[in-house]
C-alpha cells in the first residue's frame, strides 16, 4: 500500500503514465483535505450510483401507481409519500436522478467543446476573426440566459432533448470567453512557435497544444455551472417545457404537486430537496476543484 503511494508520489517519474497518475493522486489528496469538497464529492458519487442502480434502489414502479394509494403522506412504506396517481414519490425521485444526470452531462458535452473551440480559434488567430467571434459571444453573454432558453424551447417544441439544446445554446459563451483568455496567454509562447516551425498545422496546434492548457479552468467552470444547468432544466420542467409526463423529472414533479401544495405539501416539496442537494453538491465540489486546479479564479 505504502509502496503504491511512494510510486505515485515519486519526484522523478520513470514513465509518462506514472507522472500523470501521480499528478492525479496529488490533486485528489489536495481535494480531500477540504471537508466541504468531500461533502460535494460524496453527493455527486451518490447521484451517479443512484442513477446507475435506480431499479434496485427504488422500492416501487416510478411510472405506474396504485390508485388505491393516492396522495398518502410520508410514512414507513412511502418515505416521501405518494402523488395524485398513487405513485411512490421516493421511487420517482430516484429515477429522476437519471434524467437530471442525462441533461447535465449532455449540456456539458455539447456546450463546453463548442465554447472551447470558438474561444481558442478566436484567441489564436486574433484580428478580424477574433473581433467578429467575440462580438457574437458578447451579444450572447449580454442576453438573459433563461429567457433565451425559454424562447428556443418554445420554437423547438417542449421535450427533454430540446431543453438540452436550448440550455447548451445559452451556455457556451462563458467557455468561449474563458478559452480565449487562456489562449491569449500562451499564443506567443515559445513552445507554440517551436511546434509551428516543426510544421504543425493551425488545427493541430489548437487541438493538441492549446486546448489541453484550457482544460483545467474549463473543468472548474463546468462543474460550477452544473448547479445553474440543473436549476434551469428543472425550471423548464416546472414550466412544462422540459421532460414531459410521465417521466419523473424533478421540476415537472414540483409543477404537478403545485395543485395540491396547500393540503399535500410533500408532493411538490420532496423533489425540490433532491434538486437542492444535487446542486449544492456540484457547487461545493466545484469550489474545491477551483481552489486546487485554478487558484487564480479564487477571488471571483
Amino acid at each position: 500500500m505504502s509502496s503504491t503511494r511512494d510510486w505515485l508520489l515519486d519526484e522523478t517519474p520513470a514513465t509518462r503514465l506514472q507522472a500523470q497518475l501521480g499528478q492525479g493522486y496529488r490533486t485528489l489528496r489536495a481535494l480531500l483535505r477540504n471537508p466541504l469538497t468531500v461533502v460535494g464529492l460524496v453527493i455527486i458519487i451518490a447521484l451517479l450510483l443512484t442513477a446507475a442502480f435506480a431499479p434496485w434502489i427504488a422500492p416501487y414502479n416510478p411510472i405506474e401507481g396504485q390508485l388505491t394509494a393516492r396522495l398518502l403522506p410520508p410514512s414507513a412504506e412511502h418515505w416521501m409519500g405518494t402523488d395524485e396517481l398513487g405513485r411512490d414519490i421516493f421511487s420517482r425521485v430516484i429515477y429522476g436522478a437519471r434524467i437530471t444526470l442525462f441533461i447535465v452531462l449532455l449540456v456539458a458535452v455539447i456546450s463546453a467543446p463548442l465554447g472551447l473551440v470558438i474561444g481558442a480559434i478566436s484567441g489564436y488567430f486574433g484580428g478580424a476573426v477574433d473581433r467578429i467571434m467575440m462580438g457574437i459571444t458578447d451579444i450572447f453573454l449580454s442576453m438573459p440566459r433563461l429567457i433565451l432558453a425559454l424562447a428556443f424551447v418554445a420554437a423547438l417544441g417542449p421535450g427533454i432533448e430540446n431543453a438540452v439544446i436550448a440550455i447548451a445554446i445559452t451556455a457556451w459563451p462563458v467557455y468561449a470567453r474563458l478559452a480565449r483568455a487562456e489562449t491569449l496567454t500562451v499564443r506567443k509562447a515559445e513552445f507554440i512557435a517551436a511546434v509551428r516551425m516543426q510544421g504543425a498545422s493551425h488545427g493541430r496546434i489548437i487541438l493538441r497544444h492549446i486546448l489541453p492548457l484550457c482544460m483545467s479552468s474549463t473543468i472548474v467552470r463546468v462543474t460550477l455551472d452544473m448547479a445553474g444547468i440543473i436549476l434551469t432544466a428543472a425550471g423548464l420542467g416546472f414550466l412544462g417545457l422540459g421532460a414531459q409526463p410521465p417521466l419523473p423529472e424533478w421540476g415537472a414533479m414540483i409543477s404537478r404537486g403545485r395543485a395540491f401544495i396547500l393540503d399535500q405539501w410533500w408532493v411538490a416539496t420532496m423533489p425540490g430537496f433532491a434538486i437542492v442537494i444535487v446542486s449544492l453538491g456540484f457547487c461545493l465540489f466545484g469550489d474545491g476543484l477551483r481552489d486546487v486546479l485554478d487558484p487564480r479564479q479564487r477571488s471571483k
Partner: protein
Amino acid sequence: MSNATLTGSRGAAAALLARLKPIVWFFVTIALTFLGLLAITFVIGRVVPIDPVLAVVGDRAPKEVYDAARLKMGLDDPLIVQFARYVGDVVQGNLGKAVMTSNPVVQDLARVFPATLEMATLGIIIGVVIGVPLGVCAAARQGSVIDQIIRVIGLAGYAIPAFWLGLVGLVLFYAQLQWVGGPGRIDIFLDGLVTPHTGLLLVDSLIDGDMDSFKSAFAHIILPSTILGFFALAYIARMTRSFMLEQLGQEFITTARVKGAPEWVVIWRHAFRPIRVQLITVIGLSYAGLLEGSVMIETVFSWPGIGNYLTNALLNADMNAVLGATLVIGAVFICINKLSDALYLLLDPRARA
C-alpha cells in the same frame, strides 16, 4: 503664429475625437447588441415548426390560395429582406398580434410590465438594504457568525430553485402562518378598484390615499419580492464581502488604523467608499437578473406580470407574444447592463484611463 494656432486647433480636435471615440463606440456596441437580440428572435421565429401561412389560410386551403398568402406575407423574399422588414416593424413598435388576447403584443406588454417592475424593484431594494451591510460586516469580521451566514446564503442562492422556494414560502407563510396574502397582486374584492396612475399598485394606492388597497397590495407583494430579493441578496452580499476584503488588505487601511481612526470610520469611510462604484455594477447586474428570475416567481404566485404573460404564451404556442416578451425582457436586460457599465466608466476615474 497662425501656423501654431492651426496645429493647436487640430490638436484640440484630435483630443476631442479621442474623447468622443469611446462614447461613440459604446453606442455602436449597444446598437449591435440590440441587432443581435433581434437576429436571435428572428431566427427563433423562423425555426418554429408551425407554418405561419397555414395559420392564416387554414389546413384545407387550395394550393393557389396558399401560395398567394405566402407571397403576400413576404415569406418568399430573401431572408435578409425579411429580417430588415422585421427590424423595421419592431422599431415602429409593431410586434404583431397576440393570439391569446387578440390584442397587439405591445399593448399587452405595456399592461403587464408595471407588475413585474414593481416586484423586481422591491426585490432589489430588499437585496441591497440587507445584502450590502451584511457583506461589509462579514468582511470586517472574517470567520465570524455573519461571515458563515453569508457563505450559507451564497450557496443557497446557487442551489435552490426560485420556483420551489416560492412554493415552500406559500405553504409556510400563507397557508400555515397566514402572515402574507396569497397569489395575485391584491385581494380579489379590491381588484380593479385602484385607479391606475403609474401601474404600480403600491404607488397608485398611496396617491389615492387608499390605505386598504395599499395594505392588501403590500401583503401580496412582500413574499414574492422577498424571495426574489433573496437571490439578489445572496449575490450582492458575497460580492460586497470580496470587494471589502480586497480594500481592507491595502496599505491605506493600515495607515488609517495607525492614525487611530475608529474601526467604523476605517470600514465605512475608508474601505467602503472606493467600492461603491463596483457595487453599482453588481446591483445593476442583479436587478437585470431579477427581471429574468421573475418569470419563475410570477408563475408560482400567479403574478400578472411579463413573466406570467411569457409562460402563458409559451404554453399556448403563441409565437408573437413569446418573441415580443423575449424581446422586451432582453432589451431591458441589455439596457440595465450597459447602463451600469456606463455609470462605472463615468464614476470611476481609474476605469477611464
